């Protein structure tokens, strides 16, 4: 187990979770004080000593399951599995298991549920030894054979006959909970077998788990996007207060003469303590110009969401979106609408297609100059989001030059990996000469770094 814990820490570190030596020592120090056979006790102890940031907890939990899976198969289970007389056909077994699962659910018997699902995985997942896979397909195969829909139907049917009528339950909520439970049980069972087959480290590697802030935004899966949204709000709050702090400390505080003299009275006229005025906070003005064409739309949405979640860090924020022409979308964010609602309106209402719906940065820039140039003053920071893939249209970079002359700073955020820049129809370096900085911005971490340093 000692080695296993060290390997676990190693993999956490590989996943960008900082775990210091002192924290590992703490974890070892805590283990003798608890019952390590109690899995939740063990889990919480490791979490409390090793993980100091709630954003890291989801990754910790996934990896914990890989490194310290549920105990070995117990006796009751092997009885079912290795019974040579009892080998029903797939359909019969599926029916039988479904019944057991429904019963277990109705009686709220987690152990029975787990046993039934273990048998299901044994029979239906078709796990092939030694294959370096993450197990998604095995889970899918098992769930398809059990037929989740049927289970839910049986469960609801059983509920309506149960005595539990005192509590009026919301059905959709109940079924949602049940299907989530079954799915996660099957997943962890598949995971347990994979770990048994190939070892924790190998499985952790194929799963390629990442912290939400390291996920490539443009290519994120649905689950990853959900995780991203969760960390977004606290991150925005943090960034806002960090920016406010910086704008305070940059100014020199001036002496509060009146207060200093007043307080000196109590020390017989000696100014024993000197007081300073609170400096005024100066906030930046931001103009955001985002490409929302298919390839980079999700990135544009994220950037808008992040900046609007931290609006109180800016004195003013205006945003524009474009594909081959440009439109202002500031008004959607200013109403009482939530950011999600506003983003929906942006995608449905903004007039950004003039011609063919392929990105045209040159035309968008010149339309922007024509219509909205007044938005840019010498206090404005302009942020352009896009991959600068111009579909071989003329880039009209001189327009960006004129914008730069008016603005305080111009930054370009490119959601493409740096190695792809300037290949094919990407003209990012042509625009780059008129920017104060061009940044690769594929992950939330990079976006965060930019906001802290740039705006």
């Amino acid at each position, binding site marked *: 187990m000692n080695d296993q814990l060290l390997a676990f820490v190693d993999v956490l570190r590989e996943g960008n979770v900082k775990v210091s030596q002192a924290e590992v020592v*703490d974890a070892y120090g805590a283990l003798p004080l608890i019952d390590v056979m109690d899995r939740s006790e063990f889990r919480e102890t490791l*979490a*409390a000593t090793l993980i*100091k940031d709630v954003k890291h907890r989801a990754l910790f939990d996934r990896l914990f399951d890989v490194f310290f899976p549920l105990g070995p198969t117990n006796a009751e289970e092997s009885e079912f599995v290795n019974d040579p007389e009892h080998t029903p056909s797939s359909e019969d077994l599926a029916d039988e298991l479904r019944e057991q699962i429904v019963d277990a659910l109705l009686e709220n018997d987690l152990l029975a549920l787990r046993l039934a699902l273990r048998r299901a995985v044994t029979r239906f997942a078709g796990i092939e030894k030694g294959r370096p896979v993450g197990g998604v397909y095995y889970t899918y195969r098992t769930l398809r054979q059990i037929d989740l829909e049927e289970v839910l139907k049986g469960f609801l049917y059983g509920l309506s006959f149960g005595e539990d009528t005192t*509590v009026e339950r919301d059905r959709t909520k109940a079924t949602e909970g049940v299907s989530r439970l079954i799915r996660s049980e099957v997943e962890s069972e598949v995971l347990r077998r994979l770990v048994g087959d190939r070892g924790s480290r190998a499985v952790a590697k194929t799963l390629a788990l990442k912290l939400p802030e390291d996920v490539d935004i443009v290519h994120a899966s649905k689950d990853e996007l959900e995780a991203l949204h969760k960390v977004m709000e606290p991150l925005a709050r943090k960034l806002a207060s960090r920016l406010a702090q910086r704008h305070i400390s940059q100014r020199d505080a001036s002496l509060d003469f009146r207060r200093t003299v007043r307080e000196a009275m109590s*020390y017989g006229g000696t100014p024993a303590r000197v007081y300073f005025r609170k400096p005024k906070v100066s906030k930046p003005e931001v103009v955001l110009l985002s490409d929302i064409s298919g390839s980079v739309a999700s990135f544009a949405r994220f950037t808008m969401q992040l900046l609007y979640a931290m609006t109180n860090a800016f004195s003013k924020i205006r945003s524009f979106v474009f594909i081959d022409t440009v439109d202002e979308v500031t008004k959607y964010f200013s109403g*009482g609408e939530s950011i999600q609602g506003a983003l929906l309106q942006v995608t449905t209402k903004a007039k950004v297609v003039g011609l063919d719906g392929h990105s045209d940065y040159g035309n968008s820039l010149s339309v922007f100059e024509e219509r909205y140039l007044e938005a840019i003053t010498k206090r404005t920071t302009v942020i352009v989001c896009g991959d600068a893939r111009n579909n071989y249209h003329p880039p009209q970079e001189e327009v960006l030059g004129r914008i730069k002359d008016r603005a305080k700073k111009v930054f370009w955020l490119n959601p493409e990996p740096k190695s792809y820049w300037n290949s094919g129809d990407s003209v990012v370096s042509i625009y780059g000469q008129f920017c104060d900085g061009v940044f690769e911005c594929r992950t939330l971490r990079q976006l965060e770094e930019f906001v802290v340093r740039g705006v």
Partner: protein
Amino acid sequence: MKFDSISSVEDQLRANGYLPNKEIATVVYLAARLEKPVLIEGPAGTGKTELAKTVAAMTAMDLIRLQCYEGLDESKALYEWNYRKQLLRIQATKDVAGEANWDLLSEDIFSEEYLLERPLLRALRTPRQSVLLIDEVDRLEVEAEALLLEVLSDFQVSIPELGTVAPKQIPLVFLTSNGTRDLSEALKRRCLFLYIDYPDIEREKEIIDTKITGVEEALARQIAEFVSGLRALDIKKKPSISETLDWAASLLEMGVGSLDKDIKRETLSILLKYRSDIHAVRKHLDSKGRGIG
């Protein structure tokens, strides 16, 4: 130490009106046994401060509280020399003797008599073990955080004129943070970490049961389910536990036996503190019918 197992911590907290989950009980237990501070993070109103208070109450220890704010410094957190008394002392001596006494005098005015204890120092110097609550530590500036480091790792304070003050006992330390900024690695490394999120439906229902007497079980569940649904929505300020309790108490007062859409609509303002939030949720209730909760 009175904590001999995690379950005994759990029972004691429960007996004192705080409903812990396994995570909370484990961390409190470890903190006491390992003599390490606990850093508690989580949204506002989930019982972070309450936990420290309850631990103090159940162990009959004194609670020493340091409320953090921007601009908090050594003289408010650790110790301060009593200027006025020192000045008086100097003046009193001047009249009598003269300059010869300077050495004696300087030794004298930097002695304990002129030392004003602030919360951190007090927590170390009280003869009985105490609970030290450092509240909203994220409000401190990054530089001021360093003030805490020596206290949290070695449980000592260095005062240049007096030397190092050793602890009379090791206090049980809780730091709370609303996560408005990332705390320094150095601080986090010294602490055990506990994240207290909004409670799940079961726990919130139990909290309602314990805190508000006379709420029917079915109603408590409806309340907990509705509030948990609200928190999943994209609103500015999510209702905290105390707002849930206020709401439950009001419903009880109004003689409501079961929640329906109209009652939810009318009493939303107890749960939500922004007009735009109330508006959004009303719209949601209308559009989805029985939708959330």
